[in-house]
């Protein structure tokens, strides 16, 4: 099963998104919230994200959903530090909607490409029509 890592500057945001995603994907044990700094402060930490990616991987790859600016930069650094050992990609998607789409798609047994595509589709979904 494709793992999912939720990256946010805020511990609470990442955990909140995790809670929402788990409502739709309760049997998925490979979704991990990696929010904030080790101290709990606001921020992102490439090493925390790297550990989360390792923990989320079952061999089928990992999709990363990240919030603002340094969320993406720290995730990119985490991926570079991991080298080629894990098939991991960042979804170009809004972190909340993307994470929920990714969680549902991953739980259905889809591939990493399909999970990333589902997350990125969330970018174009209109909320008012």
């Amino acid at each position, binding site marked *: 099963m494709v793992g999912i890592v939720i990256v946010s500057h805020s511990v609470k945001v990442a955990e909140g998104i995790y809670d929402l995603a788990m409502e739709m994907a309760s049997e998925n044990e490979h979704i991990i919230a990696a929010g904030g700094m080790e101290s709990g402060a606001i*921020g992102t930490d490439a090493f925390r994200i790297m550990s989360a990616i390792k923990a989320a991987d079952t061999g089928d790859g990992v999709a990363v959903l990240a919030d603002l600016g340094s969320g993406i*930069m*720290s995730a*990119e*650094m985490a991926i570079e530090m991991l080298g080629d050992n894990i098939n991991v990609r960042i979804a170009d998607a809004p972190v909340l909607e993307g994470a929920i789409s990714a969680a549902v798609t991953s739980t259905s047994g889809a591939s990493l490409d399909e999970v990333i595509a589902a997350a990125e589709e969330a970018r174009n979904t209109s909320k008012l029509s």
Partner: protein
Amino acid sequence: MSSKIYDCIEMIGNRIIENKDFLTELDREIGDADHGINMARGFTEVLAILPKDSDNIGDLLKKTGMTLLSKVGGASGPLYGTAYMQAGKVCAGKTALTAQDGKAVFEAVIAGIQKRGKAVKGEKTMLDAIIPAFEAYSAAVDSGASVNDALDAMCKAAEEGVEYTKTIIATKGRASYLGERSIGHQDPGATSATYTMQAVRDFIKG
């Protein structure tokens, strides 16, 4: 007895830590009000963990980058982390640097920051101080100027770069949410980058 490279990084760290409140204030105006706090937290940790007596420049720069990466938290963590790690690669195994090495460090740092931040000059970022500083430094070194004169030219260009950031709209980072309201404010990242270069100059000039 501490090594020269440790002393140089200490001077950079102290300059950042001394200006913590000002950097945070700049970031309050156009960002998320954490730049000084984050950078000071990062350098406090750097100065605590670096081996004081090692003169391995590459190794100390790499350790500085790794520590900033994990302790800074904001966008400056991956950006400065990348910058120091790239500088460390250029300086691997070295215990002294020439003026030409300085150019190679600059090139690696700029390439690293551009790749990480996907930014170019003119977007109200640290690059608006670093790129002109590099150009001024290189031009001076290539024309045969003394190292001290090249370092002065570098800092003057960086300071002018900071002034220039007041005149432009931010299109990268948190300040981009402000759009035109970011005009009139100097960029915190360009400012901390300039402190870094000033500290290096002051260290080398002694």
